[in-house]
């Protein structure tokens, strides 16, 4: 397929989503029927998913270098570019797929809520922000898209504003999240001041001695400013990704949101932050004769240490929770710890484990939150004591919940086990980090016990209330659950092929700074005529 067409398809996705997000409330002034709003949102989500499938398929089969789309045909480094490589396309597929699933789930979940047009509008804006974050090739555009992603998230957490806990959680999340994006902005200031450019490919080039047209060599102390930039960026994205000790907001915010939104927050939003960190760490600042190599080393060690801390905090606190969604939220912190540990290894093995676990956790966590949402929707309670035995009357939902819990706890041959096994392998390969395998095992066992606690209360325990009004959840809520559960099983069974065919090319493209740089360079040189 023509490179331009595919790149345009990629670029149109966030704009389609945000335009629809603005159109929907206007539409709701004219058309008062709820089903119209829902179909509109569903159509946009489906279109975006179709675009992502198209983009990912083409990027994996036809193109070896990242696609570059320049907005307004302004070339890099003058204009804002989207530079989409295989990892970005994979993330885009994950985002749009899970947003589509959550939208289908929301159709019946939000049936008792009013103001639903704003819910779907915020959801589409959220999707736009996430897509922009993973596609972008420009540091400041990343900041903008981060805000576009975060503000709807704050609002969605507080969507049920008649519940005081939701509003409190949203306010805390908003304050902390804004601190994160502001600190990232300060980091960009340092980077711009020293390097004179905001384009990621240009930053990568300047760190290695050459430059794109128009901009010149670094102006100030490149090493010092890279250090400050990486420190602040790591803090900011670590906060958005809930890596300890920046994780405090997550156990309050994620349970307070409506369940499909929790699924998206835990499932994709924290992953987008991790992906942005991967982009900076691997493609821009690492490899070759980059100036910032010692700083990247330090960042690796920090990632491993904090990953261990996250895993310990997440798993030990998971056992104590009495609210089902809070228990699952602490599980997110645990698994983000694993992904951080994988990223911190900095080699292909570690990144394959991290990216594979990222995909698996996104699917499994979305499944868990939505299954919990279905149970809460039918039973009307969130406390585990009150949910005793409810799952016995909802066999499909309980089965999906069990598959999700087993997948994330790491039961063979489901997908979570495969990615954890790869993480073990990556750690044993390094030799001296082998004792950390004991940490992974301890936290896995604790995580398994935590998920078993939830399953025990929901399914195995004898009912204490009258359960005759409990029936299976509506079909449009059960269908996404079954699809995700099937995906968990399928990804586990075809894991060798999936890793080789999908994850490994994505990881290679993350490490391939040459391809990243040359794609932007060719585009710029074509415009400036060999400049």
């Amino acid at each position, binding site marked *: 397929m023509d490179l331009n067409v595919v790149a345009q398809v990629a670029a149109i996705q966030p704009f389609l989503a945000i335009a629809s997000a603005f159109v929907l409330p206007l539409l709701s002034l004219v058309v008062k029927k709820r089903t119209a709003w829902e179909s509109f949102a569903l159509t946009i989500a489906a279109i975006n998913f179709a675009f992502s499938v198209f983009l990912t398929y083409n990027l994996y089969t036809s193109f070896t270098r990242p696609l570059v789309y320049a907005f307004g045909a302004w070339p890099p480094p003058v204009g804002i570019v989207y530079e989409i490589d295989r990892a970005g396309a994979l993330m885009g597929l994950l985002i749009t797929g899970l947003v589509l699933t959550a939208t289908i789930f929301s159709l019946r979940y939000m049936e008792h809520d009013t103001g639903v047009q704003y819910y779907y509008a915020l959801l589409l804006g959220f999707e736009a922000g996430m897509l922009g974050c993973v596609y972008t090739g420009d540091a400041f555009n990343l900041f903008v898209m981060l805000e576009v992603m975060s503000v709807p998230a704050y609002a969605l957490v507080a969507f049920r504003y008649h519940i005081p806990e939701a509003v409190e959680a949203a306010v805390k999340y908003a304050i902390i999240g804004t601190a994160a994006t502001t600190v990232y902005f300060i980091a960009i200031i340092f980077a711009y001041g020293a390097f004179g450019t905001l384009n990621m490919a240009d930053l990568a080039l300047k760190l290695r001695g050459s430059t794109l047209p128009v901009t010149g060599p670094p102006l100030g102390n490149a090493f010092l400013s890279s250090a400050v930039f990486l420190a602040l960026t790591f803090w900011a994205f670590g906060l958005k990704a809930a890596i300890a000790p920046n994780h405090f907001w997550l156990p309050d915010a994620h349970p307070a949101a409506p369940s499909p939104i929790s699924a998206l927050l835990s499932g994709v939003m924290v992953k987008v932050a991790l992906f942005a960190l991967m982009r900076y760490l691997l493609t821009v600042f690492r490899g070759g004769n980059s100036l910032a190599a010692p700083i990247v080393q330090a960042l690796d060690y920090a990632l491993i240490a904090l990953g261990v801390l996250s895993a310990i905090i997440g798993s030990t606190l998971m056992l104590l929770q009495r609210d089902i969604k809070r228990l699952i939220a602490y599980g997110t912190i645990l698994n983000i710890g694993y992904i951080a540990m994988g990223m911190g290894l900095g080699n292909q093995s570690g990144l394959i484990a991290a990216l594979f676990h990222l995909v698996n956790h996104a699917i499994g966590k979305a499944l868990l939150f939505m299954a919990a949402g279905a149970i809460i929707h039918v039973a009307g309670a969130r406390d585990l004591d009150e949910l005793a035995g409810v799952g016995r009357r909802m066999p499909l939902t309980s089965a999906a919940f069990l598959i999700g819990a087993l997948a994330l706890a*790491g*039961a*063979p041959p489901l997908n979570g*086990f495969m990615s954890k*096994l790869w993480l*073990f*392998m990556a750690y*044993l*390969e390094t*030799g*001296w980090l*082998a*004792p950390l*395998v*004991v940490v992974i*095992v*301890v936290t896995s*066992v*604790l995580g*398994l*016990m935590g998920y*078993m606690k939830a399953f*025990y209360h929901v399914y*195995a325990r*004898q009912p204490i209330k009258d359960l005759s009004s409990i029936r299976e959840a509506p079909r449009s809520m059960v269908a996404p659950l079954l699809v995700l559960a099937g995906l968990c099983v399928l990804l586990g069974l075809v894991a060798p092929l999936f890793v080789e065919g999908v994850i490994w090319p994505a990881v290679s493209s993350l490490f391939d700074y040459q391809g990243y740089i040359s794609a932007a360079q060719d585009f710029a040189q074509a415009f400036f005529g060999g400049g």
Partner: protein
Amino acid sequence: MRLLELLFETIVYPGALFLSVAVWLTQWYYRKLCARMQNRMGPSYTGPFGILQPIADYLKLFFKEDVSIEGSSPKLATVLLSVAIGSVVALTLMLPIAPWPIMASYDVMLAMYLLVWPTIALALIGVLTPNPFSAIGSSRLFSMTLAYEVAFVASILTPVVLASSFYGAEYSLYLSCLKAWELWFNPLTAVSMALSLLSALLALQCKILAKPFDIPDAETEIVAGPFTEYSGFKLALIFGLHDVEVVVGSLLITMLFFGGPVPFAQLPWYVALIVTVVEYLIVIAIITWIRTITGRFRVDQALALFWKYVLPIATIALIASVIISQVL
């Protein structure tokens, strides 16, 4: 082709048939030894020296009615137990006694996962019956998993790490079993091996729920713990799972820490076989001996014992092994 190999291994050797015979003979030995230590007769009447007693017990259960009480999930219980027995059989196929083993680099972690599932299955089937004794028994079993599982993994990991860095065993269980026995001859690594052998034996004692760790199955307190409501074929599956765990756990320790038949590969095959069997019987004897002379721990005492004493020993052995392997 590979599927046919796996099929043969699973059904005949070292899978179902071999394990059935091993379970039979090991159970007879276990019960006879324990009885003689306690000045009792042990199995005496079924066959010479009571050797057919375990077979008689299993046949009895096979022909008894399988009562499932209302509110339980009998089919799920059967599936869980069968999957658990399958995991242990899959683990047996990873040891050097298998002709076409399941082998890959870094497969020691797969082995650890396969070892956890029997205990989880036993705890889950207890949860599935609406009986307070089963519920308490399952809860105790989950607590025990929190106690010994990590210590067991750490103590199995130590010889594997050492064998992989010194003899290139690539963290595969099969290759480590082939090489790890040579670690006893190096004084530095022998200390790590001794510490991890000690913690492995204690963790195995806990895993097979032998005294002093038979907390979930405490007859005088909670009838039969998680197994209270099971009878007939399912009870046979439960006992089968427990006995197969004993066999495979002891086989794992024999193979990994003592090398099994490998140190005697130059000698005639029957010498190696006899030595392996003797080592295996010694491991079972140690387990039986501890089981015979001790009472029963409380669940929090067992948890405290493992987290305060056994896990630190195992972790120190592992860290020492990593340091040694990096330095040398």
